[in-house]
C-alpha cells in the first residue's frame, strides 16, 4: 500500500520524498478555545479577511499554513501531519483523501444547504467556484479580434505567429496540480485541447507554476495571452492592474471548486466544522467575496448554463491521478508543448 502511495506521490511531487514544505505560516491569536490548524493552498493575503470575519464570530486561535496542493497531499496522505482543516484547489487530491478514508465526515445545517454538486460524501465541501479563463494583454490585442472560444483561439494563434511567438503562457501541468486539473478536464471536454496544445507548443509557449505570475506577465506585456488562468485571481487583480482583459470561453468554462476537508488526524474537528459552516455560508457575505476575490458557491449556477461546467466531485477525479494515466497524459502534453 505505502509503496503505491509513495510511487503516486513521487510522480506528483517530482522530487525526493521529504517532509512537506510550508511556504508561509501565519498565526492569528484569539482568547478562547482549542487552536484551529489550517493547511491551505490559498495565499494568506487572500484568505486573511475570511479568518478575521470568522474570528469575530468564533474567537478561536488559528494557525494558517500555506503549501502547494501537492505538498498538502504529501502532508496528509503520507506524513499524517496534524491539521484540522485542509483547504485546497486540487479537487482531485481532496477527493482522493475522502475516497481513501483520510477525511472525517461532517454535516450540519450549513452543509445541508450546499447544492449537491458542491459536496461529496459529507467529507469534501466546496465553498468557491472559480472559472478557468483566458487573460489577454489589451495592448497586444488592439488590432486583433478577441477570441470567443477555443477554435477561435487556435485560428488566432495560427494566423498571427509573429504576435504570439514566445508570448503565450499557460500552466506547467507537471508542476501545478491546478494546471493539471484544468488540462485534464479540457482534454475530457473538447477535441480542440490537443490541437491547441500543439499550436501553443509551436509558439514556444512559456510555462508557469502559478496564476499570479501569469497575470503579472500579461500585465507587463511579456505575454500577449495566458490560457487557463484562475479567473478569481485575475478578477481580483483587474482593478490595480490596468491593461488586462479577462475572457470566458463560450464553448465551455471549467470551474474549479475550492474545497475543504477535515483530515482524519484533526485534533479540533469541532472548530474545523465551524469553519466549514462559515465557508459554506459565504454566499451570504458579499463583503468577503469582494475582499478575497473568491466567488462563493451559488446553488443553481453551473446547472442552468451548460457552458459553465463545475468540475464534478466524485470518483471520476481519481482517474487522472492514476499513475499510468498521468504518465501517459504528461508524455502527450510534453511532446506537444515542447517541440524543439
Amino acid at each position: 500500500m505505502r509503496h503505491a502511495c509513495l510511487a503516486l506521490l513521487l510522480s506528483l511531487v517530482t522530487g525526493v520524498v521529504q517532509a512537506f514544505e510550508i511556504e508561509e505560516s501565519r498565526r492569528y491569536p484569539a482568547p478562547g478555545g482549542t487552536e484551529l490548524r489550517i493547511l491551505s493552498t490559498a495565499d494568506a493575503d487572500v484568505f486573511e479577511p475570511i479568518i478575521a470575519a470568522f474570528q469575530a464570530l468564533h474567537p478561536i486561535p488559528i494557525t494558517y499554513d500555506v503549501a502547494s496542493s501537492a505538498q498538502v497531499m504529501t502532508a496528509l496522505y503520507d506524513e499524517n501531519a496534524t491539521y484540522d482543516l485542509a483547504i485546497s484547489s486540487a479537487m482531485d487530491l481532496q477527493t482522493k483523501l475522502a475516497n481513501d478514508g483520510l477525511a472525517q465526515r461532517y454535516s450540519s445545517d450549513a452543509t445541508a444547504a450546499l447544492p449537491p454538486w458542491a459536496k461529496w460524501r459529507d467529507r469534501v465541501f466546496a465553498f468557491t467556484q472559480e472559472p478557468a479563463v483566458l487573460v489577454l494583454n489589451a495592448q497586444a490585442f488592439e488590432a486583433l479580434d478577441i477570441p470567443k472560444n477555443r477554435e477561435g483561439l487556435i485560428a488566432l494563434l495560427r494566423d498571427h505567429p509573429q504576435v504570439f511567438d514566445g508570448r503565450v503562457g499557460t500552466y506547467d501541468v507537471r508542476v501545478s496540480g491546478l494546471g493539471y486539473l484544468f488540462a485534464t478536464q479540457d482534454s475530457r471536454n473538447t477535441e480542440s485541447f490537443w490541437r491547441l496544445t500543439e499550436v501553443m507548443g509551436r509558439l514556444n509557449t512559456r510555462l508557469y507554476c502559478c496564476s499570479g505570475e501569469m497575470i503579472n506577465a500579461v500585465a507587463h506585456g511579456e505575454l500577449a495571452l495566458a490560457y487557463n488562468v484562475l479567473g478569481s485571481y485575475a478578477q481580483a487583480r483587474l482593478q490595480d492592474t490596468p491593461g488586462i482583459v479577462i475572457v470566458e470561453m463560450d464553448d465551455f468554462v471549467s470551474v474549479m471548486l475550492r474545497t475543504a476537508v477535515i483530515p482524519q488526524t484533526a485534533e479540533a474537528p469541532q472548530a474545523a466544522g465551524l469553519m466549514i459552516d462559515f465557508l459554506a455560508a459565504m454566499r451570504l457575505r458579499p463583503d468577503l467575496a469582494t475582499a478575497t476575490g473568491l466567488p462563493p458557491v451559488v446553488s443553481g449556477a453551473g446547472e442552468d448554463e451548460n457552458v459553465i461546467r463545475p468540475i464534478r466531485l466524485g470518483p471520476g477525479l481519481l482517474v487522472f491521478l492514476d499513475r499510468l494515466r498521468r504518465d501517459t497524459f504528461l508524455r502527450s502534453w510534453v511532446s506537444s508543448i515542447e517541440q524543439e
Partner: protein
Amino acid sequence: MTRTPSSIRRRLVVQLALVAALLSVAFFFALRVVAERATEATQDNILAASATSIADAVYTDAGVVRVEIPYSALSMLGTVSEDRVFYHVILDGQTLTGYDDLPVPEVRGAGRDPRFGTYLYRDDTVRAVVVRRALNAADRIHRVEVVVAQTRLGLAAISSRITTTATAIGVVFFLTATALSSFAAQNALAPLSRLAEAVRRRGPRDLRPVTAETPTELAPLVGGLNGFIARLRSALTRSEDLIVEAAHRVRTPLATVRTQAEMVHLQMEKPENRTALRQMIRAVDESSRSAGQLLDHAMVTLRSDQLETEEIDPAELLRDAVDRLSPTADLKDITITRDLPDSALRVQGDAILLQNAVRNILDNAIKYSPADTEIAVRLIPGPSCRLEICDQGRGFVAEDVAQMPERFSRGSNVEDVVGSGLGLTIVRDVAEAHCGALEIAPNERGPGACVTLVLPCS
C-alpha cells in the same frame, strides 16, 4: 372471568385480519428480497461495466503493457451514489496500477465472465468484481486482472428506503384488507341479521312460517325453524280445539242435567233431598261456568292470533257490559255506578274479545262483592284509555297479584266462591293482543280492588 359469547362476525374479521397480516408480512419480505436483489444486481452490473471498460483500455506500447483508465470507468460509479471507489489492475500477478492492497475476490473457476465478491477493505464493506483478460505482447501471453470495488453505503441507503416503502405498503395493505374484511363480514352476515331481526320482531303469538328471503346456507335452519313453528302451531291448535270440543261436550249435557235437576227439585218434598239437589245444581253451575270460561279462553287465544280489528267506542263497550250483567247484580242488590264521559274516544280492537274481557272483569267484581255494595265503572280518557272497574269486595291478597292472571290461578281468599281461575287470564291475553295492559290495584276509595284494562286509544 366472564366468557363473552362467541361471534361469527368477530371470528370472521379476526381470521381475515390474521390472513391479511400474514400476507402483509410475506409481501414485505418478498418485496424487500426482490428489490434488494435488483439493487445488488444493478450495482454488480455497473461494477462489471466499469471493470470491463478498464480491461478494454489495457494496451501494449512497444512491448510494454499499459492501461489508460477511461474517465467514465470510475465516474459512472459516482453517478448513482457517493460511495468510495477502489481499483487494482494486475498484470501477471504484479500490480500494474491502482490500489495494490485491494484483494482479488476469491472465485471458483476461471473464464472471462465477471466474478463478484464482498469483503472488508479499508474499514468498509466493499463489493468487488474481477474481470480477466489475456493480452499478447512481445510474443508473450499476459494475463490481466482488473478489480473494481465500491463501498455499499448507497446500497444500504436504497435498502433502507426499500424497507421503509415496503413497511408502508405492508401496513396500508393490512389496514385496507382488515377494513375490507370487516365490511365483507358485515355484508356476508347481513342475511343472518335480517333473519334474526325478522324472528325477533314477531309477536309472542305469531306462528306464521318465516318467509324472509334466505341464503342457501341458512335454508336448513329456516326450514327447521318453520317445521318447528308448524308443529307448535298444530299442537296449540289441537289443544285449543280439544278444549273447545270438550267444553261444548260438557256444557250441553250439563244444561240438560241442570234442567232435569231443577224439575226434580220442584217435585221433591223431603228437605234433605232438596238440599242434596241444590248442591247438585250448584256443582253443575260451577262446571258449566268453568266450561264456559275455558271456551272463552280458547277463543281468545285463537282470535288474538288474527285480530279482526274495528273502531270501538270504549264507553259503549262498558255500557253494554253493565246492561248485560245488571240483572245478576240486582240479584245481590249490588248497585253499578257508571262514570262514562261522552267523549268520542275510539279503540282499535276486536269487538268480541274486548266485550269478553270487560264482561269477565265485571263478572268477577259482581261475583266477589258482598250483597248490598257498589261497583264503580269508570272510563278515564288519556293517551291510553283506562277502563276501570272498582268493587268493594274482599280485594286481592298482595302476594297473589303477580300470579293472578296465570292460568287456573286463583286468589288464596276465594275458595268459597265458584271460579275457574281463567277470568283474569282472558282479560290479560286480550289486553296484550291489543298492545294494552291489565292492572290490578287496591280500591283507593274504600275496601275492595280496582281492575283496570288499559288500551291504546285515539
